[in-house]
């Protein structure tokens, strides 16, 4: 099959979302099953793309309209995008199954459309090769997210959504100003061509534009000063949506930020911007962990923890600035950060799935609800325990490997102070996760009635637990994949080489 068929990754969710109004009257179960069917189709396409990219070793360049870049818009599905598009599809599938249990709030037909479009937006952000198209997909993702955060229609949800919307609105305006500056200085919007021009552009323009672009994307990537919306939004949104946020929406934002930053490696003043990113990332980790410690609500606590883990991944990417893009440290750091993103997606998917399930079964996510959970819902409690051990970074579980590699890279790059801060924050993290585990297994002797757990959800949780342990025991299989994905991100030279740019003349 022709590589152009990878465009189905965009076309399938889109056409299926547009189809939903026609089956509006079919009832709750039919609509939610339809969503599951669509995500299965998406997984099939994503798996085909993944297999093709990793066997041929060449990225798929989808050229919309048949126009060669930079004339038309192209999608660039390399190692990284193929991996994450697959993760997006699988996570959406799991959450679509979870929907059957979790979603009762009307109007479900609208929910189904928004669900599919959230998946579409993240896929597009990861796959696109054009900076303005990135903006469009970012808007698709974020506007869907605004609607979904407020979907429960409670006061908290509306407030969280409003906060997100205003920060996101400033962010997208800044992003657009950044695009305007870059376009004015280069005359093109194609990412590969921008990378070619990076060294030639006036440094004032590039620095201002990059700072604006980072500011815009940091809202989506939940980096420190701009992530005020995230805990509220995570807490207030429907449970499947929270898991999707943590699993891939924030990743798409972080990826977009890193991709845009790495494109401008050649420009002067680049390492200054990366230093800024190191500081933002470290502060994200520290603030996230310390705020998590204070929470009495488990969903909110996990949300803070998720934010700080993203900060850790961003820290890995930011290390490249000091080490220099072509060094071994840089490639270690970037691969470790990608590895951390993958691990974090799996673990947080499991955690939010389990916590959401507890909320549905017991009516809330306060710490009190978790008392004696080990006796009431043993499988769920077991999954949460495994996930907690994994997040904290206990050996034998997947996050351990990525965390260790990130910290080694941090030391080698010479950011010892950040590494110490992050280690301290990890201790804090261990404290509150063990508090949760302790509450689940060793308190609440008075509550004993057992709750029967739903089989599909148990199956999903145990599958994710199995993946966590598998990666923990045999990290090398995944490490090879993420190393390729990391080099795809880092090596801009090969990115430019793979995009078939045509000559459109020179600027006057």
């Amino acid at each position, binding site marked *: 099959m*022709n590589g*152009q068929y990878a*465009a189905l990754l*965009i*076309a399938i969710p*889109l*056409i299926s*979302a*547009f189809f939903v*109004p*026609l089956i509006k009257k079919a009832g709750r179960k039919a609509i939610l099953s339809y969503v599951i069917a669509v995500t299965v189709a998406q997984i099939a396409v994503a798996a085909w793309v993944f297999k093709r990219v990793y066997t041929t070793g060449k990225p798929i360049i989808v*050229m*919309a*309209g*048949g*126009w060669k870049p*930079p*004339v*038309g*818009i192209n999608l660039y599905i390399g190692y990284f995008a193929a991996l994450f598009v697959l993760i997006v599809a699988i996570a959406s599938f799991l959450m679509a199954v979870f929907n059957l249990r979790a979603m009762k709030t*009307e*109007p479900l037909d*609208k*929910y189904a*459309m*928004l669900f599919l*479009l959230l998946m*579409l937006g993240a896929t*597009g952000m990861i796959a696109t090769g*054009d900076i*303005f*198209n990135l903006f*469009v*997909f970012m*808007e*698709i993702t974020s*506007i*869907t997210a605004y*609607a979904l955060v407020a*979907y429960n*229609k409670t006061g908290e949800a509306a407030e969280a959504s409003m906060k997100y919307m205003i920060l996101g609105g400033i962010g997208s305006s800044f992003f657009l*100003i950044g695009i305007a*500056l870059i376009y*004015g*200085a*280069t*005359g*093109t*919007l194609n990412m590969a061509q921008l990378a070619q021009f990076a060294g030639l552009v*006036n440094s*004032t*323009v590039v620095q*201002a*534009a990059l700072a*604006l672009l980072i500011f815009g994307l940091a809202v989506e990537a939940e980096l420190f000063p701009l992530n005020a919306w995230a805990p509220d939004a995570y807490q207030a949104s429907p449970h499947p949506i929270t898991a999707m946020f943590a699993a891939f929406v924030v990743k798409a934002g972080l990826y977009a930020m890193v991709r845009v930053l790495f494109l401008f490696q050649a420009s002067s003043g680049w390492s200054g911007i990366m230093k800024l990113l190191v500081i933002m990332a470290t502060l994200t980790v520290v603030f996230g962990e310390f705020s998590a410690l204070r929470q009495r609500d488990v969903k909110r606590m996990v949300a803070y923890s998720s934010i700080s883990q993203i900060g850790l991944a961003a820290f890995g990417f930011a290390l490249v600035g000091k080490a220099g893009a072509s060094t071994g440290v840089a490639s270690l750091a970037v691969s470790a950060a990608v590895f951390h993103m993958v691990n974090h997606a799996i673990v947080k998917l499991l955690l939010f799935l389990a916590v959401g399930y507890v909320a549905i079964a017991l009516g809330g996510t306060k710490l009190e609800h978790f008392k004696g959970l080990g006796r009431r819902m043993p499988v769920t409690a077991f999954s949460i325990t495994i996930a907690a051990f994994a997040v904290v970074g206990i050996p034998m579980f997947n996050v351990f490997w990525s965390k260790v590699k990130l910290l080694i890279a941090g030391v080698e790059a010479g950011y010892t102070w950040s590494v110490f801060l992050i280690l301290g924050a990890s201790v804090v993290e261990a404290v509150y996760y063990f508090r949760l585990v302790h509450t689940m297994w060793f308190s609440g002797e008075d509550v004993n009635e057992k709750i029967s757990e739903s089989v599909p959800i148990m199956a999903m949780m145990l599958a994710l637990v199995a993946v966590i342990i598998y990666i923990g025991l045999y990290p090398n299989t995944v490490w090879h994949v993420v190393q390729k994905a990391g080099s795809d991100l880092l090596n801009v030279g090969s990115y430019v080489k793979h995009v078939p740019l045509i000559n*459109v*003349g*020179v*600027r*006057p």
Partner: protein
Amino acid sequence: MVSVLKRAIAIAFILIIGYWIASALSHVPFGADKMLVGNYYLQHVENQTGAINAVTAIVVNYRGFDTLGEVTVLFIASTGVAALLWERKRKRTARTEGTIVLTTGTRLLFPFILLFGSYIFIHGHLTPGGGFPGGATIATGFLLMYLAFTTYRIPHRGFEVSEGLAGMGYVIVGLIGLAVGGYFLFDWIWQTWKIGTVGNLVSGGFIPVIYTLIAIKVGTELSGIVDNMLREGSS
């Protein structure tokens, strides 16, 4: 005192940002020819797309992928507004009927507004305009109906279905391009069949087709947003 300080900090902050954008812009001279890809479009637009309005050609053809996303964004907005303002029983709460001038004027104007909107989007590849202003004009017609008559409502269900069908139509046109020409959103009408002459109404490949779909979609979506905003719950 505190409020003055807050205001001062905010003003200082925005002045720094403004200065900073301005200093970057001083390296992007106003009015100079800075085109690279833009020039390519201008040179080849008539030949490659059959449209004489370069902006339309870029929006629908060269950068059609953006437009697909843009249509999706509007779709999300109308869906989101409907989802958030959803209540089991809602009705319009306007109390005063429009004056005789407004109602008669609206009755007279309404068909012409729809006609004008259609003109705008059908001629998108020849004159300024296109699907978005055209659709918005059509929505303005429905808005006027809402303002003039207290009990008027758009055929809600039909609008939702046509919105979905128009969106599907857009994706299907793109998928036909994938099947015929090998690329998603490939302009099979112009590049494979060469229908029409440049400058005539029948030209521009799939631009008029897509703009019609977009206009239907935009018109129904914006009217849907208006409808949702104007109907309140019984509480």
